[in-house]
């Protein structure tokens, strides 16, 4: 989320530079997506372009719909950059829509409140900002930057938005910003239908009926590993686990890891097992004392294309280094079983309740974006290249002092 917000700042700053260089007007901007990224882009635009009008299009019925009410997910701005500098710092330190670590629901509430400060300051009682919610249709015609849509325009009441009657229209914009995020997780027609990662659950809570239950977590990205941790580690907290594991040695271990630049290594298993093996002995031993007694967890890790066949396959760049470290530590503790067969075989073998099977296979981000376009086939090569190269590094490129921050 932080990365997306940084990109929003960078993008608006670059638009500012373009406008100063007379490289095209920035007057009518459409933002597809009313999540945190879309709101950040809108607030940046409204506060730096005095005469821009911004239109936000959001499919759901409220802003930041994924994170609203999400009490079991913890958001931290940069923890997935660990062991990088400032990765543990709780505050995002962003000039626009800044936030500190917390429950996703609290972060979302705070960001929407701050967004309302920007709208009150920079778009009061004017047509500078329009928000459409509950979109039943949206198509982008890229060639002429036209958007056709059907939805309901809102009238804001501070941080809350009332919707009007449905309407449909087609309009041209000089700039269209895609902030539709990763979308919702892929759901198959399989019997196992896992609620969205952002929906509340009880994975982190001990069972209260004295039983020991079997759980299957299918996947090996960040979402899956977080759920693996919640199911295997007693009282697991993403924000405190590093302090608990390493204690007063944390900064030293961090510095040592940093020296190896682990987020750039294609597979970190050797780093964890061999290079840093001895340094991690105490950490592993500590974690071994905290394993949950009421769960038996199977990590189904074959991947959606069943390409994984052994444990080392799980330590590539498919998740953050932090989560790969935790995965390694749990493996060393013998905290879970791992399976590389089909999900059906795992379920057949271990017989979990189907409600205890969690598919964390990510989203089809590219598919979600392509669905927005009337001419998706012609857009696909460019978007595919963007996805493959992943060159959108979250460096803060804007000149300091570009954006006002309201609290």
């Amino acid at each position, binding site marked *: 989320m932080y990365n997306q917000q940084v990109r929003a700042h960078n993008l608006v700053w670059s638009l500012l530079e373009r406008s*100063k260089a007379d490289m095209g007007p920035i007057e009518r901007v459409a933002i597809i997506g009313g999540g945190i990224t879309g709101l950040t882009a809108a607030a940046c635009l409204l506060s730096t372009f005095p005469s821009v009008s911004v239109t936000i299009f959001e499919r759901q019925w409220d802003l930041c719909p994924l994170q609203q009410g999400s009490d079991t997910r913890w958001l931290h701005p940069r923890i997935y950059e660990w062991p990088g500098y400032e990765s543990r*710092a709780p*505050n995002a330190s962003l000039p626009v829509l800044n936030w500190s670590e917390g429950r996703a629901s609290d972060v979302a509430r705070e960001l929407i409140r701050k967004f309302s400060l920007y709208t009150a300051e920079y778009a009061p009682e004017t047509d500078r900002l329009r928000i459409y919610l509950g979109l039943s249709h949206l198509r982008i015609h890229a060639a002429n930057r036209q958007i056709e849509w059907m939805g309901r325009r809102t009238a804001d009441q501070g941080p809350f938005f009332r919707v009007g009657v449905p309407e449909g229209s087609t309009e041209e914009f000089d700039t269209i910003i895609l902030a539709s995020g990763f979308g919702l997780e892929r759901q198959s027609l399989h019997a196992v239908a896992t609620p969205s990662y952002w929906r509340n659950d009880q994975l982190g809570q001990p069972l209260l009926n004295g039983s020991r239950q079997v759980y299957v977590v299918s996947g090996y990205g960040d979402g899956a590993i977080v759920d693996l941790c919640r199911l295997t580690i007693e009282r697991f907290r993403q924000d405190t686990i590093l302090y608990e594991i390493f204690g007063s040695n944390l900064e030293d271990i961090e510095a040592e890891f940093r020296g190896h630049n682990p987020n750039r290594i294609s597979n970190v298993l050797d780093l964890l097992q061999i290079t840093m093996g001895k340094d991690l002995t105490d950490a592993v031993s500590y974690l071994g004392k905290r394993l949950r007694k009421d769960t038996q967890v199977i990590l189904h890790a074959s991947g959606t294309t069943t390409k994984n066949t052994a444990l080392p396959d799980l330590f590539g760049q498919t998740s953050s280094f932090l989560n790969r470290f935790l995965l390694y530590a749990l493996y060393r503790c013998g905290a879970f079983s791992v399976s590389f067969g089909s999900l059906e075989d795992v379920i057949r073998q271990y017989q979990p309740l189907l409600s205890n099977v969690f598919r964390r296979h990510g989203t089809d981000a590219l598919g979600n974006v392509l669905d927005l376009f009337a001419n998706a086939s012609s857009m696909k090569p460019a978007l595919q290249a963007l996805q493959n190269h992943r060159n959108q590094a979250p460096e803060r*490129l804007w000149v*300091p002092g570009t954006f006002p921050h309201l609290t």
Partner: protein
Amino acid sequence: MGTRNLSAPNIKDHQMASRGFGPFPEPVPVASQLAVLPFLSAVEGFIRQDAAGTKFRITMHRVMTRDGQTYLQQLCVYLGQDQWNGSVVGRILPVTEGIIGRSFEHKKIVRTRFYNTPEELLVDLQKDMDDNNEGQRKSDTPVSYLAIPFLGYDGQVVAILYADIEHFNFFADDQRIAYIKAMCDGMCRLFDRLQENPFPTLRNYPLQQGEPVREEPTGYRRLQEPVNTLEPPTFLKLDSLNYEASAA
């Protein structure tokens, strides 16, 4: 900011080449502000007892790095003034800015030197201001300045105390500088202790060293001198000042 070639291969070079920053401050964690305000208020009280009725200001700047670039950032409000002006908190400055820039570069305490008469001082002050294109001196332009760098365990500058006052030769007094420096030493000892025994939910998060962002120096070269008889206060356990409060 003028016209730019946006097809330049390295946008960071483009950014570094721009003179000046935007008009707005960047965020400063409130915990970092609170970490230094009580100390500054004690220094303010010390100054006030000798300067009753005289206008002065005192604040702290920290060395802040963002994505490989190092700036000075005003860490908190100015104390000593009647108004509480929060809009200055988070101001970003190049490391060559004014007396704090000289203190940063030389890693020394820098202060306005002793003058025999106010008239001599004002002549030099105006010349220094002319060098910086600052226009005519106003009647309330401070006439005595002080910058005390706090060094980290690697000898790098971590923060800089800044003070100015409309009192002739105020900071030319060696004894006064020594007292203030002693207070700074106390702050260093406290923060070193806190680094060894941190509060669970209040921590200092290290900042990475970066490339200093420099512009034309604007320190007053005639007016100001380094203090060579006093070593700057030094943290033994910190190399940056970035306190934040966490949830747990």
